[in-house]
């Protein structure tokens, strides 16, 4: 594994992007930062600017308005970057599968590395998903 990738996996700065979710997943993401779970142990930081991001945490069902923003933001992330789909909506559109407003699932728009199901997923599930992502990316190269 190259040094570049190793360092990336040791300090993934996450950027939180909601594409029209009900805010449940977003609240659960914020829970990961609290003292109980403390993801800074793994070097993760929640950052505000897309230009500093390594990992995109995408929630929501990708409605028509937010798809354009999602594409624009994905182009701005400095590569290499990873994408995590959080929640059932981001994974499979959930109950909005037949909605007029959510025509395309997330993984048809941007490449997704790991899916974390749940409505909303627990913080433990998110941490487990990130660990699997790190194993997958670290093991492959």
């Amino acid at each position, binding site marked *: 594994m190259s040094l570049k990738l190793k*360092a*990336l996996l040791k300090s993934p700065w996450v950027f939180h992007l909601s594409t029209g979710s009900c805010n449940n997943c977003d609240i659960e993401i914020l829970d990961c930062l609290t003292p109980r779970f*403390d993801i800074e142990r793994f070097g993760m930081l929640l950052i*505000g600017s897309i230009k*500093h991001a390594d990992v995109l945490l995408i929630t929501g069902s990708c409605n028509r308005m937010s798809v354009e923003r999602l594409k624009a933001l994905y182009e701005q992330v*400095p*590569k*290499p970057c990873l994408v995590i789909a959080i929640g059932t909506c981001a994974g499979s559109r959930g109950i909005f599968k037949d909605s007029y407003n959510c025509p395309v699932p997330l993984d048809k728009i941007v490449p997704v590395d790991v899916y974390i199901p749940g409505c909303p997923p627990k913080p433990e599930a998110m941490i487990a998903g990130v660990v699997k992502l790190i194993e997958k990316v670290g093991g492959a190269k």
Partner: protein
Amino acid sequence: MTFVYLLVFGFAATAVLGLITSWIDRKVTARVQYRVGPPFLQPIIDIVKLLGKETVIPAGASKRTFLIAPVIGISGVIAVATLLWVNQFFSEGFMGDWIVAIYLLAIPSLSIILGGFASRNPLASLGASREMKLVIAYELPFILAALVPVINAHSIRLSVIIDSQAGGVFAGNISGILALTVAILCVQAKLALVPFDIPEAETEITGGALIEYSGPGLAIFKLMKNMLFFVLPFFLIILFFGGLRLNGINILWTVLEYVGIVAIITVIRNTNPRVRIDQAVRFFWGPITLIAVVAVVLALKGL
């Protein structure tokens, strides 16, 4: 020889100590919030990771200025660190190096302003203009506070300031205590930490002047800030505690002074909310400048 001073002391030693300091800061912050905090190597891993990332230059930005701003900033820090190390351990320095140190310490802020305005982002411009106002606010009390040791030592050379504290440190006088208080608050603003993180304000303007920086540019800015986190307490130790003394039991005192200053800065950062820019300017030009002037007058009276 100059080259060795610049690379080994100005860059390498300062960077290592600065990264350790930034780890202490993050760890103490985490402990204050009942968290575990990052592992010891986290700051250096962050820098290595950022060096390996892509550089995104925003469309319409002034490319040359955008890329050269972090280099200007880090050269300023390396220069001032070299000046301090050389005065501390190797030579007598030259007449007026105190003035040079004060000037060089303003360069990092200047580079952030340059980078912010060059990146053609409204939030970055906002951050840069706030940084500019903050520089105008804290420079006056900082220079007044740094003037107190000069008055006490009757010399404007850093090495003489260090030597004249062999009998008793300036932080022992009334004027020294007042000036040290002022200087620590100004250092807080120079490092752009809470409550004076107005130019960066993660929750408000999402990184401020650094918002458009990615990859190596951001890595250099981060490294510059970490090095500054070592250089500024080091400067205060030279001015008020007689420099780093590495003989016998004095090593313990030096480490205690350094960790004490860093701990005070970190605790202030963790127990205060962010102030607005007008409140910060009023704070620095009002009570803080007043305290600094009182310290200077007391120092002139010989107290």
